[in-house]
């Protein structure tokens, strides 16, 4: 009844308030929480947190890596912002094995470079391995097949291979099969340097250089080259910062998670600054005690993949506590300078995400519908390495979220759709010192932050499409309907 009445009242107001004489005037209704959050989460508010990340990095050695004073300050800022907004804030400590690089060099004659060892690749002994450099001719899939090495002396050699065309593991196996003793990869574009090889198959050391450093070696075919890569692990304590609304069902919680750290070589303003800033601003605008049906929990993970605090957090929860999580919204970098609008592929339509927990497809649809409503075309997000979401997906928790793209190269079709430059990575400064305040596309960030606000506001009111739990007013109506006998109904009517 009341819903009908208020809708009618609204319709009257709408007519009065719309003097423009629009032929197809939009009927005005009381804005939903999702709509209110979209309005309240402003670029200006998000940008202020980006300023905080930049400033914290600038006064703490240029980065906010975990562990470091810059990361501690970042967490303190998040905690104080959440507390000021009225959230219940807690801290979840965990320990992980941090990889510390003892030495990582490639020396070819006078050229000495510092590559990034690939995760999963074996270390060398002290002194490293030395052999002639075998420069694999560069093409779109250099070193993916043994034939790429035609004419090269590969036995006992250090293979220099350009990135692209197939997995690092495959390139490493091809090189090893030809007798190479180490592989040095170099990037195919400006930007992030690093990768993962399958530890179970990796038997020769591998490390990666940036594209500029790679170019310093491509003319050194046959030059005796030393590769030394040594690391050790150190048990390190970190913590996740968790803030939850005081309102809403605690057994049907919307969990948002984001990283908030940088690497040691970067202030990390886009990665992970933009996602942490958008999440924090959303929390601030939602407030600690909103009128919501479902509690909203914000998690700012410590450490980073592959040691992310997400997995230890999930492991610390009982089965019942996991069941209390209605969904996991994973917030990845949202403001990439050459970015786009990706949505996590909940229905596995691109065939890369694998089987997804039920409800993920619905989360994807909510995000895609929002983007469509503001005229933005989306694409299913590329599955990148070992993101946080993998942990939640493995636990059967419906998962989704927006993403602006990071390491992949923008295609001409994507540039036509989203603007930006084709042939360039979505974030050419990823993990680099230039991932600073200038490394943000604020239009893209604004739209992605709006999408995050919309999906959060929507599910804070009802997760019915995801897990069948209806909003509070519908539950109340159902209860009333069940308790009323025909007689009392008749009596009340009388």
């Amino acid at each position: 009844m009341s819903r009908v009445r208020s809708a009618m009242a609204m319709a009257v107001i709408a007519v009065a308030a719309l003097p423009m004489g629009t032929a197809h005037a939009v009927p005005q209704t009381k804005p939903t929480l999702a709509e209110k959050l979209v309005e309240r989460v402003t670029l200006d508010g998000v940008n202020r947190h980006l300023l905080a990340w930049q400033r914290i990095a600038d006064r703490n050695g240029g980065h906010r890596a975990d562990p470091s004073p810059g990361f501690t300050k970042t967490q303190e800022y998040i905690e104080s912002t959440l507390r000021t907004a009225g959230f219940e804030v807690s801290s979840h400590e965990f320990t992980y094995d941090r990889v510390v690089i003892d030495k990582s060099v490639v020396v070819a004659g006078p050229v000495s470079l510092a590559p990034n060892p690939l995760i999963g690749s074996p270390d060398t002994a002290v002194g490293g391995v030395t052999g002639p450099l075998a420069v694999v001719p560069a093409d779109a899939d250099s070193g993916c097949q043994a034939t790429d090495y035609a004419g090269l002396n590969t036995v006992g050699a250090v293979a220099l291979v350009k990135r692209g065309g197939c997995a690092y593991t495959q390139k490493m196996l091809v090189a090893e099969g030809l007798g190479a003793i180490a592989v040095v990869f170099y990037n195919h574009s400006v930007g992030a340097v690093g990768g993962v090889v399958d530890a179970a198959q990796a038997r020769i050391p591998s490390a990666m250089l940036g594209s500029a450093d790679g170019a310093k070696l491509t003319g050194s075919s046959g030059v005796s080259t030393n590769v030394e890569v040594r690391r050790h692990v150190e048990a390190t304590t970190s913590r996740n910062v968790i803030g939850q609304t005081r309102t809403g069902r605690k057994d049907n919680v919307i969990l948002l998670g984001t990283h908030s750290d940088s690497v040691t070589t970067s202030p990390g303003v886009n990665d992970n600054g933009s996602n942490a800033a958008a999440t924090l601003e959303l929390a601030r605008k939602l407030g600690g005690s909103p009128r919501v049906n479902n509690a909203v929990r914000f998690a700012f993970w410590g450490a980073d993949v592959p040691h992310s605090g997400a997995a230890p957090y999930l492991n610390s929860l009982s089965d019942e506590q996991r069941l209390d999580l209605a969904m996991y919204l994973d917030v990845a970098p949202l403001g990439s300078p050459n970015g786009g609008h990706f949505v996590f592929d909940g229905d596995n339509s691109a065939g890369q995400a694998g089987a997804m927990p039920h409800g993920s497809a619905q989360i994807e649809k909510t995000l895609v519908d929002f983007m469509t409503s503001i005229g933005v075309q989306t694409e299913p997000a590329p599955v990148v390495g070992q993101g946080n979401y993998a942990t939640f997906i493995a636990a059967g928790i419906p998962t989704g979220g927006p993403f602006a793209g990071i390491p992949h190269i923008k295609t001409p079709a994507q540039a036509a759709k989203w603007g930006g430059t084709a042939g360039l990575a979505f974030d050419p400064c990823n993990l680099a010192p230039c991932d600073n305040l200038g490394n943000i596309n604020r239009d893209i960030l604004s739209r992605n932050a709006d999408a995050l606000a919309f999906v959060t506001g929507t599910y804070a009111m009802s997760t019915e499409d995801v897990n069948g739990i209806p909003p509070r007013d519908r539950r109340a109506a159902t209860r009333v309907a069940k308790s009323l006998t025909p007689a009392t109904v008749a009596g009340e009517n009388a």
Partner: protein
Amino acid sequence: MAVVIAGSVLAMAPGAQAAPDPAALSDRLVRQVTADGINRHLIALQRIADTNGGTRAAHTPGYQKSLDYVAGKLRAVGFDVSTPEFTYNRIVVDAATVVAGAVKAQPLQMTDSVSTPVGGVTGPLLAVPVDTTPGCQIEDYAGINATGGIALIKRGGCPFTQKQVVAAQAGAIAALIYNHVDGPGYGGVDPAQSKIPTAGLTTAEGLALTAVAGTQTTVDIRSHRQMTTSRYLVTQTRTGRADNVVLAGAQLDSIPTSAGINDTGTSSAALLEIALKLGPSPRVGNAVRFAWWGAEDVDKTAAGAYLRSLSFERQLDIAMYLNSNSIGSKNAGYFVYDGDNSTGSVGPMPYGSAQIEQAFAGYLGGQAIEVEGSNFDRQWDHSQFIMAGIPTGGLYAGTFRQKTPAQATKWGGTAGVSFDPCHQQPCDNLGNVDRAVLDRNADALAHVLGGYAVSTEDVNGVPARASRVQARTAATQKSAGLKATTLGGAE
């Protein structure tokens, strides 16, 4: 409907936005801030020094009068002015004499050097041979019996700290370092490595003493620190965002032996004239805050005290810090703080500093002036802001360093002479200002300040007000479009 809106949202590329022209305010300020207006403030500062013992040092009535003058001018045009107290550890000189027979000198004890006992130390005067690195290596003392002697060393080639460490190693009981350029021998040593009492002398004093090398010489240099209370001054426009403030500051006090008209009068006077012409309620996007600091060059500056009084959030409200220092030097250069660390000598700078440097260099470049990056001293006021991660930039016309022939070709003036030959001397008076240089630098400051008062987008991504209005409109359209497409479907 949604499709139409979508088109307009996507057309909001940054370049397509019709932002207001920051040049309008900049141009007005550049036009209204005149050499004449600034000069009147310099006259006032000179007069204040002349009637207060020749100085405007932070612990003296001359400084209080300087502060009152600035506050009075600001209040007269409607600014709310606050003058918070701060304490600093002032150096009080107890003795400063060198007596070598008939030759006497007035040494300046190096900051953080140990003092002599009362009555001083006495020993033979040792003239350390002059080369390109005098007294920098122990070999420089070869053939000299330095034990118990007073080492007389020419400046240059290595830090003061190193010279006195080497002298102490050779057995000397005090070190006198005389200048290689005009002007007094100001300097400091690393307190952790201060081995023997060390003082600076002028070139003339050094040469006079060299002539009497071997004479039994008494060096009496003593000082102590005294906690002293002073004030600084802060004011802010009533208009503009209070959470994205452009802060511009200048040092106001002089040294105890000078009226300090170029250093610090020129920057203080230019800033005051800019504030007066901007007014307390200009049409700006961002609030502008002005500060006049006291007690620079000591270990607890007013700027440091001010920053420590602000929480991280209140510091975050400061979009940038614009500093200027000695901007009317007689033999001037045109230096801009090296925000992009292109000289490699300032270390990493907060993000946005490079953009500020570019704004200054761009304006002066438009006046056909080629600037150089200033490798400024981290002890100055602005270093406090840099350490706090606040984007920082500013102007400097040079003081104690010598102008090179290349700089003289580029900027005019005299090569081989200090940029300010009266730097930190009694002659830093009204006659020690190049008013054309001062006018140009004041214009540059007015231009840059005016531009950032409208938009700091290049420094921190906060756009001008009009583009924010456009962004809000777009957001409203967006949610209207949202209603059109999603609400109907939900029912």
